[in-house]
């Protein structure tokens, strides 16, 4: 029992320390945004720009997260993975929504989750807390496993679902413009008129946080990286939302995600399964 209390106290301290780090890196990114010129923007592929600041934010996060939890591992969207001693691992997206960041749109985020990997050899451990910070809106979302979720220190709850025809659903377009794209167009077509609005916000970590906070009613996407999702998944779970893969796999493995209140989640799950008949193959990305 004492061990459990000590464990929870340690997690609460780590969550506070990590929140401080995430907030300061987010504010730094916001300040840096103004100094970004076009020549530092290097293109990996269309729709996937990576900036200098992304790398620098990643470096700062690594250094500071490793200093508050020495020996921990890191799985980041940006740099290479660090294995660590196998007990703890940070899952980091230093800049979620790079295109928005570059373009000057308000929805981009720094996202960090901590995974307890004690006794785990492969696959995913338990996500113990997740942080999503939106610097332009100055909102820090923090979810702790079993302890609820907060926005800037105030508890948030998903609340009663809105009527379906009033709900706003956001989604991400698939990377491939072939068959998956046709499928997504079919889903969007089918949702039109049945829901209140469909959005493309362009930052999955932000979108999951906004669903958890009730500003959006649902989110669905494929081709997601684990770092896009980890913190947001915990936020959804801790606010009473439903989050998952359309075929019941772990979204961190499949890259597919549906998030929303129970009825919205069910609506989206059905739509996706109607269009994509079979589940694409699962892989272990942990």
């Amino acid at each position, binding site marked *: 029992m004492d061990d459990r209390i000590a464990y929870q106290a340690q997690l609460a301290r780590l969550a506070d320390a990590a929140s401080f780090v995430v907030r300061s890196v987010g504010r730094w990114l916001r300040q840096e945004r103004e100094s970004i010129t076009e020549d530092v923007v290097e293109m990996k592929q269309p729709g996937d720009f990576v900036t200098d600041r992304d790398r620098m934010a990643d470096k700062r996060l690594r250094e500071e997260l490793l200093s508050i939890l020495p020996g921990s591992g890191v799985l980041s969207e940006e740099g290479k993975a660090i294995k660590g001693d196998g007990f703890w691992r940070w899952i980091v997206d230093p800049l979620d929504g790079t295109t928005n960041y570059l373009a000057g749109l308000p929805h981009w985020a720094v996202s960090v989750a901590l995974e307890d990997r004690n006794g785990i050899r492969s696959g995913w451990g338990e996500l113990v807390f997740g942080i999503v910070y939106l610097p332009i809106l100055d909102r820090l979302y923090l979810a702790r496993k079993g302890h609820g979720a907060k926005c800037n220190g105030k508890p948030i709850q998903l609340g009663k679902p809105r009527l379906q025809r009033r709900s706003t659903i956001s989604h991400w377009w698939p990377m491939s413009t072939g068959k998956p794209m046709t499928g997504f167009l079919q889903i969007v077509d089918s949702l039109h008129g049945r829901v209140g609005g469909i959005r493309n916000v362009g930052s999955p970590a932000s979108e999951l946080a906004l669903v958890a906070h*009730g500003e959006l009613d649902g989110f669905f996407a494929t081709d997601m990286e684990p770092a896009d999702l980890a913190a947001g998944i915990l936020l959804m779970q801790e606010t009473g939302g439903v989050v998952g893969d359309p075929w019941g796999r772990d979204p961190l493995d499949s890259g597919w995600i549906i998030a929303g209140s129970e009825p919205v989640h069910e609506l989206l799950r059905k739509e996706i399964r109607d269009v994509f008949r079979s589940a694409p193959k699962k892989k272990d990305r942990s």
Partner: protein
Amino acid sequence: MTGESMNWTDLLDKVCVLSQRAGDYLRAERQRIGMDRIEVKGQGDFVSDADRGAEEILREGLLQILPGSVVMGEEGSPHERGGEWRWIVDPLDGTANYLAGFPIWAVSVALEDRREHPDGFGPRALGVVHLPMMGITWEAVRGAGAFRNGSRIEVRDNLPVQSMLLATGFPFRTRDQLSGYLELFTRLYRQVGDVRRAGAAAADLCWVAEGTYAGFFEMDLKPWDIAAGGLIIEEAGGVISDWWGGDSLGTGWVVCGCREAYDLQKRTIEELDFSQPDRRWS
């Protein structure tokens, strides 16, 4: 009053202040009426109340700012056609976002010079788009450039196509047009960097004007969605028209962007040979 005798700087300042006042009112209303209350009362009712309240603030203020002018607005007078100077206003663009609490919704005000165009749309002389939740005000006076919170803005030229970020809205009012729209969407999406949908056309237009988006296209918008943002785009060096090259306000089918993005979208629209809608605004 003649255009030459107007003090445009003074007029613009007054319109900006008024738009911000309408925005503050909407913001306060949204906070005052919590979500629970909205469910009880019915969301549609609440929005029309807030909408009407904000339009009243605008109407009263604008008629004071420019005596003898008339106001065309979604709530009170969608078909107002008299007068030499006509305000075209949308007190709340992006109502779904406003209700949901998603911070992208706008107050949009334009002034149209009808002295030589009593029947169709005259040139827009002034435009203001205000985003209360983001603290952003975009503004333009014809011939004097476009500004965001006081700083000059310009469209972003010379972007490679695969780096362009476009914005759009899906045709939820015109379901029979959906298949053509989806084809257009797919053809553009395959070429550009990405496409966003934020759900407030007036704001989308201004994000084109400041180079955030390279371009924007949507079917079946209303004159008050477009009038202010359209002028701001032109004053920022961008191009805007309807899908057949006419004034965007006539059909409300809008295509705009920096020159390259406009050409790309317009060319793709032409490939698909859309037929012009019968209804025209004036």
